[in-house]
């Protein structure tokens, strides 16, 4: 359950330049030029340009993921700035996607960053993710998370879930048809709320999501599948709960 998807292969058209070899030298020590080629060839959709999205997008950009699509329809507000670290004071009033595009492109011009300022809804979700290799769930509501979960299952796209509340976070990695999906773990959505949060919680959770994505693309390590990781920042503990597919799951039960 831990290996990268077969279709992210390092074929001949993925070329790592001299400057890229220098830029990524420290991580090429881990997974070789082959792994870097895989990253370069990958296309990732990051759903949500908020606290979690800021962290995962930044780390995936500096890691050299070839193409990154960021989707969000919000505008930056002052109250976002305690956690959404890619948005700065000067960005208040701007589209979050414009702010992301600017920061990510400056962080690493080798990465092709595209943005879409649209609300993710049933009618557009399939088109949005159609040529992605995977989806990072950095949303702030379960309604959209469920939409993404379902499209990830339909299109066989790995789905990297993270959620935060206060000093706590929850994370899991979903491989469609093989592991518990979001709906298997959380059959019902919590009521919408203005959640309390410190920025550093997004740092922990978004960092783990980005780690999972890199592992998946490169094909190293054991993925966070069939496990829900719960970060308890107040106690400085990570708890782990084993989860499994629910054969009666309304979203993935028919996947066999």
């Amino acid at each position: 359950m831990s290996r990268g998807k077969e279709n992210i292969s390092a074929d001949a058209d993925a070329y790592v330049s001299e400057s890229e070899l220098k830029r990524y030298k420290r991580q090429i020590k881990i997974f070789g030029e082959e792994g870097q080629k895989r990253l370069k060839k990958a296309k990732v959709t990051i759903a949500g340009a908020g606290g979690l999205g800021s962290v995962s997008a930044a780390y995936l950009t500096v890691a050299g993921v070839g193409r990154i699509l960021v989707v969000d329809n919000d505008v930056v507000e002052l109250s976002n700035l305690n956690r959404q670290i890619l948005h700065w004071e000067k960005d208040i009033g701007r589209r979050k996607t414009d702010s992301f595009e600017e920061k990510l492109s400056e962080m690493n011009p080798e990465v092709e960053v595209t943005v879409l300022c649209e609300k993710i809804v049933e009618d557009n979700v399939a088109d949005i993710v159609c040529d992605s290799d995977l989806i990072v769930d950095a949303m702030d509501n379960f309604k959209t998370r469920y939409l993404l979960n379902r499209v990830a299952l339909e299109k066989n796209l790995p789905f990297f879930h993270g959620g935060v509340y206060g000093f706590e976070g929850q994370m899991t990695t979903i491989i469609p048809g093989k592991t518990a999906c979001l709906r298997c773990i959380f059959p019902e959505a919590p009521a919408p709320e203005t959640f309390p949060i410190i920025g550093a919680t997004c740092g922990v959770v978004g960092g783990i999501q980005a780690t999972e994505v890199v592992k998946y693309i490169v094909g190293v390590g054991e993925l966070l599948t069939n496990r829900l990781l719960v970060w308890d920042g107040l106690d400085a503990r990570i708890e782990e709960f084993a989860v499994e597919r629910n054969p009666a799951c309304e979203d993935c039960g028919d996947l066999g």
Partner: protein
Amino acid sequence: MKVEVQFFARCREIVGAKQKVLEVEEGMRIKDIIDTLINEYPELKNVKLIVSLNHKYAEQEEKLKDKDEVAVFPPVSGG
């Protein structure tokens, strides 16, 4: 017999503790302690609760044994 119950996120705020040790009778199920907790902390009723038993996702119908560890947490939606 005794079981330890851990609380996370909103559940922890409502209960006002990160864990509690509850006295339970032979044959009781997870559902019974959830009912007891809701009785004591009615606000828990408004939370979508996920439960685990000994670090494994569990159905509320599962029976409890002495020294079991139950965790109670809601999905967290923040991003």
